[in-house]
């Protein structure tokens, strides 16, 4: 392995600075004691964090998003497991088409999906319903769960399953006692990725949320486009902290590079 030259390292430092700068600034400004967006030169204050916790809209949106992500990640993972089994373990007509259909929300812009759901919801009178919002999220986050579960199934050693079958275990027993436990890392990784993607989703949600079901990213977008004060920085800092904790958990459990990059 060759070493990186001085020029390469300088370039690398600039890239890292570029990547981290906006996140660092957000975290610093959140601690300002002032009323305007400014760096905390003279003293550190937690007043904007307390303002967030006393802002009923932000608190309600946070719980809304958490509930939404919990439900939609669980449902999409539950749907993804049998679908992934069908795609990897069986050969049937239309298998590639099915695979493409399930992954299509990755290709269709979320803007278009949002508009399409808005049309459907107004058609069936589902506007403002939390259940239908969950359904919309299930559709856009299922590909993330599916991809990880597909990868886990493709990389799985089949000899344990075959041994169980030879010893007389039925299909369901094989799944429950062998396949599912071996698949668990893939399933939990897929669930977490689906959860994060639901929790962060903005572009589709902004079309289909009603005042009672507004999610945190939508609330933040609306707040940031109307008024800019350090409270926005405090909410953002909390989001960054939350994401950071999730990232560390994901990294410890699976290796984040494996999860996001795939098999390198």
């Amino acid at each position, binding site marked *: 392995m060759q070493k990186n030259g001085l020029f390469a390292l300088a370039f690398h430092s600039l890239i890292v600075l570029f990547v981290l700068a906006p996140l660092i600034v957000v975290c610093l400004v959140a601690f300002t004691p002032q009323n305007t967006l400014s760096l905390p030169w003279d003293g550190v204050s937690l007043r904007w964090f307390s303002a967030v916790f006393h802002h009923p809209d932000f608190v309600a949106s946070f719980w809304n998003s958490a509930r939404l992500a919990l439900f939609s990640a669980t449902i999409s993972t539950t749907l993804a497991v049998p679908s992934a089994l069908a795609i990897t373990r069986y050969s049937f007509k239309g298998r590639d088409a099915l695979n493409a259909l399930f992954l299509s929300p990755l290709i269709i812009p979320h803007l278009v999906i949002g508009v399409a*759901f808005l049309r459907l919801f107004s058609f069936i009178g589902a506007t403002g319903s939390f259940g239908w919002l969950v359904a919309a999220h299930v559709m856009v986050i299922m590909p993330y769960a599916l991809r990880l579960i597909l990868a886990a199934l493709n990389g799985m050693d089949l000899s344990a399953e075959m041994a169980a079958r030879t010893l007389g275990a039925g299909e369901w027993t094989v799944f429950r006692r062998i396949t599912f436990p071996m698949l668990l890392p893939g399933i939990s990784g897929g669930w977490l990725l689906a959860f994060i993607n639901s929790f962060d989703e*903005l572009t589709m949600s902004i079309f289909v949320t009603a005042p009672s079901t507004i999610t945190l990213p939508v609330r933040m977008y609306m707040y940031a486009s109307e008024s800019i004060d350090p409270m926005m920085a405090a909410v953002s800092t909390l989001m960054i902290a939350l994401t950071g904790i999730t990232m560390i958990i994901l990294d410890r459990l699976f290796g984040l590079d494996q999860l996001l990059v795939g098999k390198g």
Partner: protein
Amino acid sequence: MTGAAIRPSPRLPAPFFLAAPATLLFIGLILLPLALTAVLSFNVYDYSSGVQNRYTTANYLTVLQDPYYLAIFWRTLRLALLTTVITVLLGTPEAYILTRMGKPWRSIFLLVIIGPLLVSVVVRTFGWSMLLGHDGLVNHALAMLRLEPVQLLYTETAIVIALVHIMLPFMVIPVWTALQKLDPTVEAAALSLGASRFTALRRIVFPQATLGILSGSLIVFGLSASAFAIPGLLGGRRLKMAATVVYDEYLIELNWPLGAAIAIIVLLANLAIMLAYNRMVERQAKRRLG
């Protein structure tokens, strides 16, 4: 994606039962709403009485002839293309530098580069609006260097800077994956056989990275062209892109058929570019495999 071990299906059409729930959902909640939207885009819209039950191509004609919308499409294409080019120029060398790093640093910096992917786009865009604002850090830094402050917020420059920031991981990941397959001894061999650093990069590293660059640019272009939060927060009311104008038509003008027409155009353009690109990538892959 396709399976490792394919067994002949036992008695019943098992895959049918396994995949049926998700298939029905995708037909009902992806294909059907898209079809409804496509129909809506042909509906007549009347400002006083709303969506009519009559059909017309006027929405598409308006969008494709009105200079206001054409300017927005043109800006969307231009900024998405510019973002893609800059992301290639920054992401490719960065991915290469990452592959050449030693043990702990490589995974640490890979996390630093791709980790922000998990942070909400709104948060990152808000960070840029603080950096680029009139009273932001960039202008403070310029003042310290005794330079004139510049108007960055609500310009195309701000949109492109933030887009590049969001898109960088989508370029680094595929290029990094492609370079992983490169045996480092090949590059060392080229150097020891007398090739210059530049020749080694051009003849060995770059061809290996090409497939990664191609698939990365496809993702980056598609996501940039339909980006919503960044032009919404950094472009102000004046600088619209495709996604923000759809939002306006739907939720402010309430002209759903026109908004639907723009959304369908965005979708079709996206699919067309993707197909053309896939062709190109396949051809490239075939050439590489000989």
